[in-house]
């Protein structure tokens, strides 16, 4: 019964989405306020219906209703509760439902926080989101129904892929999808602006917070995926330039460019059509990302489906959304206008440089990700593009961008003078040079690339700090608190995100420069020295888990006579599927990680004999994710800005006033 309710809710949601997508659009064209007013209740109803459907599927998973095919294939009664719940989005169908839920949720949020928007714009934005929802709901109902029943129902489910039985599964997909789908709001704003031909500073002010929030969620989602890959795949890498990772990284790059371009559009009215194009691009890449990951074109743990009908549907959907919006852009971009003038040395030009570099980086990632797929599709053979390509391309493109990150926030709009910039930044230049020259010695060995990386990180950090100090010095207010309060949260958010980039660079540089990776054969009682610490293998003990049997190894880490930590890496065999998983054991610290994972027994004695053991030392690796967290926090800080809340306050004040009058 419950799954049928869910299925029915999806059908009604589709009908509501059609209403939401069509009527307000017609209303906006005819200036018919009754038709436009349909948008808000429709968006809310759509969210409630999709949430109901999602709840029904989650209920089926949590209660192990194996008569639902999706549950039978992706869950098991032995699975712990939180994984049964997370298994809701562990399948292709379930993840699409999560996508639709997020889309409904963003539409709901827009309907709540858009009362200060002009009616026409509000109607069009919600209508575009409704149109996108039609595509996804139709896809689910025709090609990947999550509620298909099995008759007779199996007694036991096939289990969730062992790789996915991880805390990361609970958090990573929802966060990532929040980000992906969040760009649909920026996309809807862009399309609405193109249709209306009106694109000005207030338009940019409305779309900015939405874009920033989506970007922040995407940042967290990608970082969580990276952490998950780091500890669960047993390879100790935090980024593999795997197509699946690139699929999430490309919208992030486009979104980053969009955030910066929106800033120019809001403050200076410039880059208008470029901003619109980026908004289309960011959402299109989110769709392509979904397609790449979900259609089974990639060799990866993420590829659940190998059904060509689905691929054709998604391709057609992509063609309609991307092709349609680009066509609209081609026709209407002229009406939107280009915007104000600026000199070659100005904040605008720096942000333009930032955008160009981000787009070049994006294009090179796109090339490396899609080219092998094209070659394969054209039956020209099979190739792959490995990390060396991405490393060779990405870092040189990012280096000048990071340089600009130091200058941009200090440069003034419209026109800056280079001598003036130099006076304000020379302190940061000295700090950066000193850090690049000296800090690598502290790590024991001076390497040119490490020096460059630390130079750039120190440059961003020092330029950010000096930007704050100069603002505080020149602020007219008295007292440090008043001076601090004189600046907007948006400005602090930007600086916080930039500091996050600095922390991120420190992590990447030091882990790339000084990581030690060693695969060794260890007998019981045998030790090996890696990075100044001795790792002694103490043998294996079997230990049953809730739905798996683990072999738990004990590795004592000592430095000299001092005990550092005892690591307990596991080799798990999941009972339902027989899948084997390596669980690394990691001791994290601010200066780096000790990382041990088990390979396999290498002697005839089996598990009691010698094992292949992987030992990694990862200096400063946690800074990478800490940096991502700072970036996301910066995003969330930025949207706390008064100018975004002002309208809301007015509304509350108005409501309070009305309530007071009513009471009187």
């Amino acid at each position, binding site marked *: 019964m419950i799954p049928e309710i869910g299925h029915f809710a999806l059908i009604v949601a589709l009908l509501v989405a059609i209403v939401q997508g069509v009527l307000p659009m017609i209303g906006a064209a005819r200036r018919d306020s009754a038709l436009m007013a349909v948008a808000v209740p429709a968006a809310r109803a759509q969210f409630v219906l999709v949430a109901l459907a999602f709840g029904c599927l989650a209920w089926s998973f949590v209660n192990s209703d194996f008569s639902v095919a999706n549950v039978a294939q992706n869950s098991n009664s032995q699975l712990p509760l939180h994984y049964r719940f997370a298994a809701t989005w562990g399948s292709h169908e379930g993840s699409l439902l999560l996508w639709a839920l997020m889309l409904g949720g963003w539409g709901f949020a827009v309907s709540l926080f858009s009362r200060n928007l002009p009616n026409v714009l509000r109607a069009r934005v919600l209508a575009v989101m409704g149109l996108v929802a039609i595509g996804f709901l139709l896809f689910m109902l025709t090609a990947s129904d999550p509620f298909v029943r099995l008759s007779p129902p199996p007694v036991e489910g096939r289990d969730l892929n062992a790789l996915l039985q991880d805390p990361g599964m609970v958090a990573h997909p929802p966060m990532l999808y929040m980000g992906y789908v969040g760009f649909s709001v920026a996309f809807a704003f862009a399309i609405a602006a193109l249709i209306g031909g009106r694109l000005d500073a207030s338009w940019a002010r409305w779309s900015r917070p939405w874009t920033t929030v989506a970007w922040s969620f995407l940042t967290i989602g990608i970082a969580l995926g990276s952490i998950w890959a780091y500890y669960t795949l047993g390879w100790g890498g935090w980024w593999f330039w*795997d197509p699946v990772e690139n699929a999430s990284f490309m919208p992030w790059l486009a979104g980053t460019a969009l955030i910066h371009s929106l800033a120019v559009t809001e403050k200076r009215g410039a880059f208008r059509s470029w901003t619109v194009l980026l908004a289309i691009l960011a959402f299109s890449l989110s769709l392509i990302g979904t397609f790449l990951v979900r259609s089974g074109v990639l060799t990866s743990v993420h590829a659940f489906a190998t059904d060509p009908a689905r691929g054709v549907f998604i391709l057609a959907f992509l063609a309609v959304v991307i092709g349609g919006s680009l066509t609209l852009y081609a026709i209407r971009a002229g009406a939107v206008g280009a915007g104000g003038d600026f000199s070659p040395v100005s904040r605008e030009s720096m942000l333009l440089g930032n955008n160009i570099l981000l787009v070049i980086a994006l294009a090179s990632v796109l090339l490396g990700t899609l080219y092998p797929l094209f070659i394969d599709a054209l039956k020209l053979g099979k190739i792959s593009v490995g990390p060396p390509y991405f490393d060779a391309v990405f870092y040189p493109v990012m280096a000048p961008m990071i340089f600009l990150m130091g200058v941009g926030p200090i440069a003034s709009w419209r026109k800056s003078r280079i001598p003036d910039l130099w006076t304000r930044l020379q302190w940061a230049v000295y700090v950066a040079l000193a850090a690049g020259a000296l800090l690598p010695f502290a790590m024991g060995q001076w390497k040119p690339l490490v020096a460059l990386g630390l130079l750039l990180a120190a440059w961003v950090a020092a330029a950010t700090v000096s930007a704050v100090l100069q603002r505080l010095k020149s602020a007219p207010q008295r007292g440090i608190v008043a001076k601090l309060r004189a600046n907007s949260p948006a400005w602090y958010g930007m600086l916080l995100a930039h500091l996050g980039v600095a922390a991120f660079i420190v992590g990447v540089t030091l882990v790339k420069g000084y990581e030690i990776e060693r695969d060794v054969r260890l007998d019981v009682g045998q030790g090996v020295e890696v990075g100044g610490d001795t790792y002694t293998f103490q043998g294996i003990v079997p230990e049953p888990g809730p739905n798996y049997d683990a072999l738990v190894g004990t590795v004592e880490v000592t430095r000299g006579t001092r005990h550092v930590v005892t690591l307990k890496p596991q080799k798990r065999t999941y009972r339902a599927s027989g899948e084997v998983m390596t669980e690394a054991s990691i001791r994290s610290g601010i200066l780096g990680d000790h990382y041990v*994972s088990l390979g396999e027994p290498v002697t005839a004695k089996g598990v009691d004999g010698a094992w292949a053991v992987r030992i990694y030392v990862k200096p400063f690796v946690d800074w990478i994710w800490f940096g991502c967290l700072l970036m996301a926090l910066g995003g969330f800080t930025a949207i706390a800005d008064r100018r975004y809340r002002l309208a809301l306050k007015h509304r509350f004040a108005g409501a309070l006033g009305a309530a007071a009058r009513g009471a009187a």
Partner: protein
Amino acid sequence: MKARYRRFAWIGLGLAAVGIAVALVLSAFRSNLVFFFTPSQVVAHEVPQSRPFRVGGLVEAGSLTREPNSLTVRFRVTDTAKTIPVTYTGLLPDLFKEGKGVVAQGRMGPDGAFHATEVLAKHDENYMPPEARSAIEQAQKGPETMPSLHEARAR
């Protein structure tokens, strides 16, 4: 007039920078492409000698041996028509099993064996890596339908 020249100069500089970036990207791209070959192609000496490539197929049942006191393993990869020996030093992925699909990256050694630097198994139990599956399909269909990789490279 002067402002106009300056603007042209800036645009020219910008275009030059983008051009250099594109050139760097494409050259990095060319030198980092890794081509995929089947064991039959390896046996027929169609593989590059100077650069790493990938080979895929099934791990032949019973072919896995370990060298004592090291982490070096030897196994044979087959596309059901031809079989090649592979050596690898390091930890094998969880999904590596005899009789299952595998993709390895590396180059040919002087001993006639494929020296793998990386053994890939990013696929689940029921799912063969597409490269390995196509190697087997190609071997069974016969060489005439095999897409030539030299063609792809010449393009």
